[in-house]
């Protein structure tokens, strides 16, 4: 009785490896592409920061140029109020009174209500 033997030339090799096609590019290309995008992004970001710095400088200097004019106007108004207040006080009390035992200027806390006001 003939025995069950392998076929002549042996069995065919068994396919145990998966045979899937590799999709897309090689990983190194993806790495390069991402690095490129990041570099571009940081470059644009840096440009934006530089531009913002310059815009900030422009805004600061526009204000610096205006500060003296605004401050002068405000100071004149303060002086006007203070002199009016003193004049009113002199009129009411007859003499200038010193509240503090010092010649130092102290910003007045209270003011006499003026006679002529808006509305």
């Amino acid at each position, binding site marked *: 009785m003939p025995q069950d033997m392998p076929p002549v030339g042996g069995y065919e090799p068994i396919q145990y490896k998966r045979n899937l096609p590799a999709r897309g590019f090689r990983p190194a290309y993806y790495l390069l592409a991402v690095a490129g995008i990041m570099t571009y992004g940081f470059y644009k970001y840096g440009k934006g920061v530089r*531009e913002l710095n310059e815009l900030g400088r*422009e805004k600061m200097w526009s204000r610096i*140029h205006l500060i*003296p004019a605004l401050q*002068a*106007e405000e100071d*004149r108004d303060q*002086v006007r109020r203070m002199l009016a207040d003193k*004049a009113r006080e002199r009129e009411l009390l007859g003499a200038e009174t010193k509240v503090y035992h010092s010649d130092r200027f102290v910003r007045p806390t209270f003011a006499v209500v003026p006679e002529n006001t808006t509305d």
Partner: protein
Amino acid sequence: MAARAARFNQQVLIDTTPLPDSIPKVKEIGATSAPLLSAAFFIGARCKPYNDDYMMCKTEANGRGELECMKEGRRVTRCAASVIADVNTHCLSEFRKHWMCLENWNQQLWQCRRFERDLNKCVFENLKLEKVIPGAPADEIPVHLRKRQIYAHSYANM
């Protein structure tokens, strides 16, 4: 306390007494923020000596000096008012366009470069005042002269 109605009476307490005659009168500038911002660099260009003088006076008075620096303050105000008056006489339409643009664009200077370019050109030709930003890097184009404003929202104003 919460049941008590709020009563504001500050607005009737504004003193209208003018300055005494011993102090020389000066007409205030009377411009709002947008025209002032639009003309800021021209004010700075013409009035720098007066501004520096005034600020030095204030610094030497330890930041007060309301009375001591009145003379310098009057000079500052007259100079700034003269700039505004000159811009108004020579470049009224450009000036108006620029500050109205600033008014509409939240007073962001980079949104209104088109009008600013016209205004700067007109002011330089007529008044010889140039906008210069001190301390800007020398090897770059100054930010107000750049063709492309990367933060501007509107191409129409760029």
